[in-house]
């Protein structure tokens, strides 16, 4: 196993009486593709919120590589290389796709503080942003305001924004949510083509996709990690089958 890219230790979180994360020990090695599955309301999105700093854990620690990042702000974690996408599109409706990705690149390169030179003068940032959009096949509509893009394109832009930060660890929250089944395979082929320097943890409900793209699978139920293993182990696991066949699947 490679060195760990991301790890959590004893992460707890409750909303009032509702426990959404209990003693979460997650280990994501460098360069691997892990899937995080579990019924709706299991606490998967909450776990991403905790790891990226959008929620504060009640207890526990988060490590990026060797570094304890529990006390860092969300934007500082992004600077360290821990980046997420959102289950529900969280984009900039009136910015064009090019502007949004350029903004991300500018923030990374430290240009976003400069207020004297014009944006187009930062050719390197604009070019890099455009190249990312080309690689995700978004170039044709990159000058249109985000809110005018087709839904599938907006899902791709979610990923484009994350990639523009040059992540080391990428957490994808249901990247194919709402995308028709035919197109979701295409979207995941984009993900599997990502550089092997990036460790990926993705949440997905479609088991075919999960078994095809994940090296290992983590199953979450009721705020706890139920089991973790290779796709073959998970497919054979009785407890997982109980959760999925007995309970809600997409519910």
């Amino acid at each position: 196993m490679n060195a760990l890219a991301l790890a959590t230790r004893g992460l707890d979180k409750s909303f009032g009486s509702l426990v959404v994360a209990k003693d979460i020990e997650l280990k994501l090695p460098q360069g691997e593709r892990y899937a995080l599955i579990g019924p709706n309301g299991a606490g998967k999105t909450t776990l991403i919120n905790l790891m990226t700093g959008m929620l504060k854990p009640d207890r526990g620690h988060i490590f990026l590589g060797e570094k304890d990042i529990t006390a860092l702000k969300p934007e500082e974690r992004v600077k360290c290389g821990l980046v997420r996408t959102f289950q529900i599109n969280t984009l900039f409706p009136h910015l064009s796709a090019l502007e949004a990705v350029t903004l991300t690149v500018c923030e990374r390169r430290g240009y976003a503080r400069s207020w004297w030179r014009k944006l187009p003068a930062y050719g390197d940032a604009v070019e890099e942003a455009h190249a990312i959009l080309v690689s995700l096949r978004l170039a044709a509509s990159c000058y249109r305001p985000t809110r005018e893009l087709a839904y599938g394109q907006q899902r791709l832009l979610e990923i484009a924004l994350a990639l523009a930060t040059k992540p080391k660890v990428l957490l994808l929250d249901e990247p194919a949510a709402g995308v028709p089944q035919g197109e979701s395979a295409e979207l995941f082929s984009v993900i599997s083509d990502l550089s092997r320097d990036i460790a990926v943890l993705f949440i997905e409900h479609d088991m075919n996709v999960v078994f095809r793209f994940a090296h290992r699978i983590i199953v979450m139920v009721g705020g706890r990690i139920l089991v973790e293993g290779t796709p073959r182990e998970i497919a054979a696991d009785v407890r997982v089958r109980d959760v999925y066949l007995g309970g809600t699947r997409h519910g």
Partner: protein
Amino acid sequence: MTPFTLSEPQRHLEAQIRWQPVELAFWLATLLPFVFAPNYLVLASQIAITALFALSLDLILGYAGIVSLGHAAYFGFGSYTAGLIAKWGWGEPLTGLAAAAVAAGVLGYATSFIIARFRHLALIMITLGLGLLLAEAANSAGWLTGGADGLQGVRMWKLFGAFQFDLYGTTAYTYSLTILFLAFLLARRLINSPFGLALRGIRENAVRMPAIGAPSPAHIRKIYTIAAVMAGVAGGLLAQTTETVSLETLGFARSADVLVILILGGAGRLYGGLVGAIIYMVARDQFSGINPQYWYFWIGTLLIAVVLFLPNGVLGGLTRLMRLVRSAA
């Protein structure tokens, strides 16, 4: 920079920020009062000052999405600074204005640390509270501010030692318009820079910003300070051109007025505050004979109508109209 060296995406971005003929026409038109309305230069000067104040609000509200109900705090602070310096015997306009800018900027920077922590209702309350706080402080400190009687005894020297502030407002309008234009150039630069893009990012989606590694609070502190400086300059101009400062420069009514002006013109489009100021101030001048209560009746009705039917202000409405006409043709 020649367009030939720019790539396709760069050219696209460049095209969005190029000077338009209508902009040049607008600024040329601001010179018309000298020729056609020499009796209205005093009013024109007040319009330029209000436009500058609205432009400064546009930077934080229209671009960064920070709703403020207390922006007059910086206007009034600049006003009193410029007024007091002149009253204490230093009547040189430009240095006085610089002092107003610095004072408002320091106040803006100090308060920006509070502002950057809040959003939504809490932000509205905090800006309102800070504005009221300063107004009350100025009211209590009558020995310094003149209290409800206003600051008397402000005497300005000649501008550049040559141009007297006259009764006709020739010097005043030239002075205010020049400062407005310079501030506008600065704002235009700023908006079209990477920093300006980051501000629009905050307005468009404050939740996403940290997730792309953007330190929103730092951006907000910066633009808030810049806007405070600009508001302070506007206030300083008012003190210098009218040679008096009243408590009203700090009041809630002024904060609300400038909000109305900006929304009327169209927030987030740089010319919104300017156009709004012209419409509002000219209308108020025309109706100056009527009871102020009725004035507020119409302003209130106008606000309700703009919110319901013209959410992007007059300029937004015009843009939409142009698009309709063009697509029909």
